[in-house]
């Protein structure tokens, strides 16, 4: 099979599993011919795309700053390359990290607690020098990406649409940031719309890029649990954050723990556990805490009311101290929740 034919086949945007079967059974060249001629059932768009010219496609890719990486090539992600259902071609904006990566995934409908925790994890993982992988979706995904950027780390976003299609649209700026400081990856061609079937399929890439998968919050049905299951199939260790047993957004995580996932007891604990799997982190963690007030905020942050009660201080004093820390960039605020700020980018 020639590289041009593989590129054109990948650019048709057909389901990766169908593409894999066609390549195995009749080869990329024959598959393109039959798709274009209509001998294989295909939509009009796919038929046109199958007849396209490989040179024109690579020109277009170059113009928008996207690189095609072929499976088997030296720069194809090693871990991913070992999977039987790995994509044949990956489209990449930016670059892939050279350090080991941790995937942080979770539900789009997360709680403030989950969001803060994912962000703190992203920042801490960045701070110790590992890369993070997630899906640029709402909720946990985007919080983890934000944390990565907070910690000036390297992150990879794996999209369920073409590498030039941002979904949801408001995540475009974070996606572009990731592309400059890490990479934005997709197995789908330029312009591929964010169709619902594309998301569960790309989850195997998220877990395939990572040495470990952390599920922060997940419902019983949803993409996060699919990622965890593929990770288990791939032999990638899975970590899950335990939650209230009656909270829907934690049911998936608790289920994973029952089925043998490592429970996460905190951000520091996660780093420690990850070190067992991934080896020593490249960098030393930033010292967090230091003052009673910062200690009282804890890893996941808390409200001024809680801190004042814990330290038995007048609320006015606590509010003032927190505002000072916020003004100096040590503490971050989201609504009434204060938490440690991470090393800023």
């Amino acid at each position, binding site marked *: 099979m020639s590289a041009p034919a593989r590129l054109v086949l990948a650019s048709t945007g057909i389901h990766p599993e169908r593409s894999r079967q066609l390549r195995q059974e009749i080869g990329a060249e024959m598959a393109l011919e039959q798709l274009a001629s209509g001998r294989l059932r295909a939509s009009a768009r796919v038929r046109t795309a199958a007849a396209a010219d490989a040179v024109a496609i690579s020109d277009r890719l170059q113009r928008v700053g996207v690189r095609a990486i072929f499976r088997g090539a030296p720069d194809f992600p090693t871990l991913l390359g070992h999977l039987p259902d790995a994509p044949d071609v990956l489209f990449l904006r930016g670059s892939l990290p050279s350090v080991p990566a941790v995937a942080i995934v979770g539900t789009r*409908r997360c709680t403030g607690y989950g969001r803060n925790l994912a962000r703190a994890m992203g920042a801490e993982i960045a701070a110790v020098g590992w890369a993070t992988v997630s899906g640029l979706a709402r909720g946990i995904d985007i919080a983890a990406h934000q944390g990565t950027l907070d910690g000036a780390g390297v992150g990879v976003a794996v999209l369920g649409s073409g590498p030039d299609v941002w979904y*949801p649209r408001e995540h475009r700026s974070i996606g572009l940031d990731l592309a400059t400081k890490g990479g934005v990856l997709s197995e789908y061609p330029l312009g591929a719309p964010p169709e619902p079937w594309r998301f569960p399929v790309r989850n195997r890439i998220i877990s395939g890029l990572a040495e470990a998968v952390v599920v922060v919050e997940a419902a019983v049905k949803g993409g996060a649990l699919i990622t965890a299951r593929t990770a288990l199939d791939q032999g990638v260790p899975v970590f899950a954050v335990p939650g209230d047993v009656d909270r829907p957004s934690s049911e998936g995580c608790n289920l994973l723990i029952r089925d043998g996932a490592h429970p996460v007891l905190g951000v520091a604990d996660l780093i420690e556990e990850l070190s067992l799997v991934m080896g020593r982190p490249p960098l030393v963690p930033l010292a967090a805490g230091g003052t009673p007030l910062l200690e009282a905020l804890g890893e996941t942050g808390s409200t001024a009311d809680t801190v004042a009660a814990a330290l038995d201080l007048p*609320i*006015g004093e606590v509010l*003032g101290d927190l*505002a000072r820390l916020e*003004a100096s960039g040590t503490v971050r605020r989201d*609504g*009434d*929740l204060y938490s440690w700020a991470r090393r800023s980018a």
Partner: protein
Amino acid sequence: MFASTTSVALVGVDPRPVRVEVHVGGGGARFSLVGLPDTAVREAKERVQAALASSGYEWPSRTVTVSLAPADLPKAGSAYDLPIALGVLAASGVIDKSATDVVALGELALDGSLRAPRGGLAAAQVARDQQVPVVVSVDSYHEAALVTDVDLRPARTLREAIDVAIGGGSSVNVPAATQPTVERPVDLSEVRGQATARRALEIAAAGGHHLLLSGPPGSGKTMLARCLPGVLPPLDDGAALAAAQAWAAAGLPRSETRLSPFRSPHHSITLAALVGGGNGLPGPGEVTLAHHGVLFLDELGEFPSHLLDALRQPLEEGYVDVARRSGSVRFPSQLQLVAATNPCPCGHSGDARTACRCSPGAVERYRRRLSGPLLDRFDLRVTVSAVEATDLAAPPSESSAQVAARVAVARLHQQQRGTLNARMGRQALDDLAVDDEAASLLRSAFDQLRLTGRGWDRVRRVARTVADLADSNAISGSHMAEALALRGSW
């Protein structure tokens, strides 16, 4: 042949004296009433005739002309029955002319008894200004008694009214005041937890700042707002009278006259009911009923935008003008605004325990509705957290009285400076004494927290109040820092 009595009409909430002139003479039993009367005033003839008959007097069988002057001032209601009756009897020589040297106000029942229409307070004010006695129904007594230095003569019937108008000293027994219609404020000791929100409430009360409470449903935002009147200092004579006047103009009696009024209109309220207006003579709206008190808007995001826009004049100027064909009427509306809102349509955005079900776009749209000029009015914006079980088990916290004592001290500082902190302009803010740490904190906040120019002013106003609560002349770093924490995050 001729007699004239004084009565009163309301323009907005202000009393205007009305001369009720009666001429009896000529032949033919005719009756005419002039001077922009509305239907209720026109019907006075029937009521007065019947009441006179029931009281044992006879209606003169000559031409009766009644003029309500000034003629261009619209008059409404049944309040002129009593002055018309007095005038008719005096002009036809049945009773002594001295009976008309009073301010009289009252609706006559057909059996001759005297009822209380709106305007009892206004009548007493006119009587005070003109230095004459005022005759009203006993039911208007408590309302009219708010005015000091006036010879107040209550009566139950037309006959009693004539007696007291002529004879002076009244022997009429006045019933005790009716039950308070003003809701008692909630006491702060009933609010568990919510340290930040309590503190914000205290600062709002001390400096007169508008306060925005944002938080999930059931977090106690409404309860907190209802605590505010109990923490505010008692109204002084002028404010108590002004508030009572506003309520009286709406026909609502105010018995707790020293307590700041508290109004909480629902978001389905009409424009006229919110800022004043209505059919016929414009009446006061909720913003006027909250004069010298608190206007609480629950679910601020649910209020249609035209209502929120209409709040601009009352908030900026302290009064509201209601336009009418005959010119506009001005209603006072110096109020403190407290608003509560969910952080997003489902209410759980930012909640540590419950997931938000709204899309980010919906949250953004929801907040944008509130943003802009109105949001800028709130010096204090705090997030109220959902109540924790541990809070409910905690011992009761400080009572309203304890907080009110500190608020009183802070108000004293502001009285000496001559202005409420919430009303300080840019110039006054620039002149504030600020220590070095506070100044540098404000500068770093400007960079780090992306404070806007208006935000800068808000923080300084609140910092001044925090300093007043701490009995301090200069704004220190701690005062400024606390003000920064209460500025709100969106």
